[in-house]
């Protein structure tokens, strides 16, 4: 199989990259800039908001959608990332992504947070402590594998989820994040990359990678027992609603925080984020109204999340009403994906991690190529010092192609890396729960607890 070959190739390549060229000098900024209390306040609270997106946000959004017997198991898939990814990131993840290295992976100079202290890392965020930047970026590494778990919810062992996620971080997240955001990254237009891909807050790094990986896992692991004949309605939509609202609020930290300062760019990203979310919710409600006659609560919140995922890539590059358009498209396309296409193809992406994040991330990546404009973000300069034209609306339609290349690279890494991670995990621990355990539910069989004891 070509995929398998590619996988092996990539697997062999990556470690080599990881430790290469560690001696290349960091471009030292002329003068060390002072820390801005305002920027640091904003970034610390943004970090807190992004953590809140995973827990309780995503954990609730997801656990409300599963059956009662899996409520704790599903929450734990998010919560465990908060614990485990944190340690991995501090040990070496941060370094592999944000240290200088080669075009594909950073080196280990920041391993164990060596050299990550009060002084800013001027390459990324010259007005906040390096520690702030590190912890802010950590929160992204936490939520990304947590998103994937939605695809295989209700049927995978806890230990396997952990091992899979760890391998996945090394094979997919760290390289892609380095390529898009790291210094010298292959796709980083701001710090010396080859192919300029605009990804403000992780449309490619977070949503495309997690979404496409999710699809692969869903297909690999197979459907839940009983799916799709047996009805499996959400056990508690109130939880999902709380989760979705917290995701919305937290996403301001995710997107506006990605300005890395409390600047007017942050304000602009904040506005774009909010408008896209609103438009996504409206679009999804319209779609449901047309197709079923009734706009659902689950539909409304799913649309908001679709809008948010889709605008992530362009949040700091697009005008407010471009964000509205992005949100609308997101709502309609993701709805179609989830309600029509998925039903046809019959894979069981339990919580639509692919249909919302993968699809939303992908179209958001392309639409950033359309709507990105220097009127919003003039960070990229031409040789003459003027702001470079960004997307098609700036008269640079070629950017759409760049974005497409970025998306495809993200997808390839996601698919290959996920296959390897699945294979390794399966060999080491197995992946899927036994049918008996699945029937009993994750809560009892994996964690020895029940979510609710209302008759106690």
């Amino acid at each position, binding site marked *: 199989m070509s995929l398998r070959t590619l996988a092996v190739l990539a697997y062999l390549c990556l470690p080599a990259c990881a430790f290469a060229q560690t001696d290349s000098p960091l471009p030292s900024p002329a003068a060390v800039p002072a820390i801005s209390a305002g920027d640091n306040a904003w970034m610390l609270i943004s970090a807190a908001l992004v953590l809140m997106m995973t827990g309780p946000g995503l954990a609730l959004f997801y656990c409300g959608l599963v059956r009662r017997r899996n409520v704790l198991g599903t929450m734990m898939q998010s919560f465990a990332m908060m614990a485990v990814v944190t340690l991995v990131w501090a040990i070496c993840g941060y370094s592999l992504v944000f240290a200088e290295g080669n075009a594909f992976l950073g080196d280990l100079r920041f391993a164990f947070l060596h050299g990550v202290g009060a002084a800013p890392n001027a390459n990324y965020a010259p007005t906040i402590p390096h520690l702030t930047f590190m912890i802010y970026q950590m929160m992204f590494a936490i939520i990304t594998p947590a998103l994937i778990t939605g695809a295989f919810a209700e049927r995978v062992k806890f230990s396997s989820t952990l091992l899979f996620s760890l391998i996945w971080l090394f094979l997919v997240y760290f390289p892609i994040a380095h390529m898009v955001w790291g210094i010298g990254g292959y796709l980083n237009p701001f710090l010396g990359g080859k192919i300029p891909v605009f990804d403000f807050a992780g449309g490619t790094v977070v949503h495309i990678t997690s979404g496409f990986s999710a699809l692969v896992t869903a297909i690999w692991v197979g459907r839940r027992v009983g799916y799709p004949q047996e009805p499996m309605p959400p056990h508690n939509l109130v939880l999902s609603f709380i989760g979705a609202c917290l995701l919305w609020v937290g996403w301001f930290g995710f997107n506006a925080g990605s300005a890395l300062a409390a600047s007017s760019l942050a304000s602009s990203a904040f506005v774009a984020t909010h408008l896209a979310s609103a438009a996504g919710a409206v679009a999804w409600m319209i779609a449901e109204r047309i197709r*079923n006659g009734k706009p659902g609560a689950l539909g409304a919140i799913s649309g908001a999340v679709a809008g948010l995922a889709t605008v992530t890539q362009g949040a700091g590059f697009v005008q407010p009403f471009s964000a509205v358009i992005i949100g609308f498209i997101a709502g309609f396309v993701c709805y179609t994906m989830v*309600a029509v296409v998925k*039903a046809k193809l019959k894979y069981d992406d339990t919580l639509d991690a692919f249909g919302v994040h993968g699809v939303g991330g992908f179209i958001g990546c392309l639409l950033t190529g359309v709507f990105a404009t220097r009127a919003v973000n003039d960070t990229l300069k031409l040789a003459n010092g003027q702001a470079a034209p960004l997307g098609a609306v700036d008269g640079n339609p070629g950017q759409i192609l760049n974005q497409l290349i970025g998306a495809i690279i993200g997808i390839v890494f996601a698919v290959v890396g996920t296959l390897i991670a699945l294979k390794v995990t399966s060999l080491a621990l197995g992946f899927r729960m036994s049918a008996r355990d699945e029937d009993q539910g994750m809560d009892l069989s994996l964690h020895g607890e029940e979510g609710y004891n209302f008759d106690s």
Partner: protein
Amino acid sequence: MYKIEAIIQPHKLDDVRNALKALGIDGLTVTEVRGHGRQKGHTEFYRGQEYKVDLLPKRKIEMVVTNDRKDEVIETIVKAAQTGKIGDGKVFVYDVGDAIRIRNEDRGDAAL
């Protein structure tokens, strides 16, 4: 002694209880159940996936009564629970072998 078991619409519970109280019937036990009969269910949609629900919420009232009260109790329940629409429910009657009041070990009719 008979057990009268009535399966009724949830929102009729208060009416039925009041009617029974007026009749002097105090002892009863209520269970939340779901039922299916001629009444059609409804369809729910979750992210476009259809999900047919045809077990609808009902309340089951059970009361054990002395032989002489059986008919008036049935009549009272039927009158109070009736809306004339499909789904109103059923009343079933069973023989009871014995009854014991746990508090003081009264037996038979005295226990009701």
